[in-house]
């Protein structure tokens, strides 16, 4: 049997999940080999700033890196960049890389993430139709925005809204097209999305809801958008943010069960021995819920990376956390925790119109989620209170004269 020090862990995917896993393995005392393979040219980096501070030019490229370039050498982590894993052979325990090399493994962790869902309509392949998922996308978008005066955003999710806010800050006119009746339809409550839509509108963003884009117009560059109802809008660049698709090709080809992500257990183990999956690509039963989720967020990637690092080093797993998420738009800081699915009522603390409030969502008397805007104390209080039956305290949450710490017992 191998001792830990001559074991060989291979991580496929050098995003937030994969990069963090390599670091956690060393933190937890693992002394064997680690190989981190990424198809991008860059060392692992923070993606969230790509639509915000980095796109605005406020921070340097190096500030995005999870760890400095020198880290991987100093921690004895073999970093193989610009290489895609093309084949996984679980019988021989080997992966084959696009560059022609291969790597044997004792334990394999798939952290291939997700990629932007592509539009497939006439004109969607024009040069100034942008997506935003990785640094290369962001560089192209930043370049495109520099010469853009009117941007069409397709999709009213986080990518669409954050880029709309950034574009407005750069003085670009923005029209946002969303298929459903409201922004953040899948991921935010109705009152939150209504507030955000009004806020974006005051900043000059125009919205077209229930708008289905039929065609991107233009000969060699996008110059307009035509909706299925015939309306036409002029633009000189298009950003598409219509969701993400997990990168499961490698797993599917290796015979792993995939259903909107690689199906894993609570410890992120796949059905194959010594093969794990973490991050945006993993479809996992969340320890706090009786359902499978594929959660696209940094905190989830971190939690899963810690879980697998614990598992592989024989360390007790840290306690499960409620899913949470943040976003920054203009001067608004959004922080959300919990899952809205079971909510059937809500209580607002603070004044929505003031732009500083928190919506607490309940399933009957039990707090299940909270959405905070410029209300960090409420967000952190909610993190502690989720799952708690609040009963008569529920209505008092809206009373700003009752200090938050009265609710935390």
């Amino acid at each position: 049997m191998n001792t830990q020090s001559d074991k060989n862990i291979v991580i496929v995917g050098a995003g937030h999940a994969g990069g963090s896993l390599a670091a956690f393995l060393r933190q937890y005392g693992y002394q064997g080999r680690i190989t981190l393979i990424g198809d991008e040219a860059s060392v692992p980096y923070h993606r969230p700033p790509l639509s915000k501070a980095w796109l605005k030019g406020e921070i340097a490229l190096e500030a995005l890196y999870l760890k400095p370039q020198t880290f991987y050498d100093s921690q004895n982590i073999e970093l193989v960049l610009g290489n895609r894993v093309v084949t996984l052979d679980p019988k021989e325990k080997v992966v084959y890389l696009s560059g022609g090399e291969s790597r044997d493994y004792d334990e394999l962790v798939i952290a291939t993430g997700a990629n932007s869902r592509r539009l497939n309509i006439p004109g969607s392949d024009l040069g100034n139709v942008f997506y935003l998922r990785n640094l290369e996308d962001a560089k192209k978008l930043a370049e495109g925005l520099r010469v853009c005066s009117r941007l069409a955003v397709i999709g009213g999710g986080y990518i669409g809204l954050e880029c709309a806010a950034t574009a407005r800050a750069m003085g670009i006119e923005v029209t946002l097209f969303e298929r459903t009746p409201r922004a953040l339809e899948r991921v935010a409550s109705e009152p939150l999305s209504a507030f955000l839509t009004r806020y974006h509108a005051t900043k000059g963003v125009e919205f077209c809801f229930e708008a289905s884009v039929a065609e991107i117009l233009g000969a060699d560059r996008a110059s307009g958008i035509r909706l299925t109802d015939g309306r036409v809008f002029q633009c000189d660049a298009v950003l598409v943010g219509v969701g993400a698709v997990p990168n499961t090709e490698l797993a599917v080809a290796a015979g792993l069960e995939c259903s909107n992500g690689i199906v894993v257990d609570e410890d992120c183990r796949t059905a194959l021995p010594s093969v794990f999956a973490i991050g945006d690509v993993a479809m996992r039963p969340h320890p706090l819920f009786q359902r499978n989720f594929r959660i696209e967020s940094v905190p989830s990637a971190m939690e899963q990376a810690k879980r697998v690092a614990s598992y592989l080093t024989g360390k007790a797993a840290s306690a499960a956390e409620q899913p949470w998420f943040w976003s920054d738009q203009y001067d608004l800081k959004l922080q959300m925790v919990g899952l809205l699915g079971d909510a059937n009522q809500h209580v607002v603390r603070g004044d929505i119109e003031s732009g500083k409030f928190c919506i607490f969502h309940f399933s009957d008397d039990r707090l299940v989620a909270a959405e905070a805007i410029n209300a960090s104390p409420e967000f952190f209080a909610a993190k502690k209170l989720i799952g708690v039956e609040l009963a008569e305290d529920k209505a008092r949450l809206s009373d700003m004269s009752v200090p938050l710490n009265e609710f935390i017992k």
Partner: protein
Amino acid sequence: MVKVLFLRNDGAEYLVEGEVGMSLMQLAMNNNIPGVDADCGGAMSCGTCKVRLDNEWMEKVDPCSEHELQMLEFSGSDFPGIRLSCQIKLDDKLDGVRVYIPEQQ
């Protein structure tokens, strides 16, 4: 260079050096110091880079901004001297600072 000693509850100590202007969080990240997660990378969104300083050192760092105070109010920090390490920039008067890492973020 500024010398910083990170200390964990389990007794582990990490003596590292950083450049003036770098944040304590960045220094912890660069040296892979366990217990400082920094999910958001310094965007003041996550509250997972908390550290604690002694009184002696608290007097030498810039005070908390209003937002940082709000971030700390309910973020599981029930002892004084707690700060977000992403908000503390290294400077010469911090040379030799002792930084305690909480058991949990």
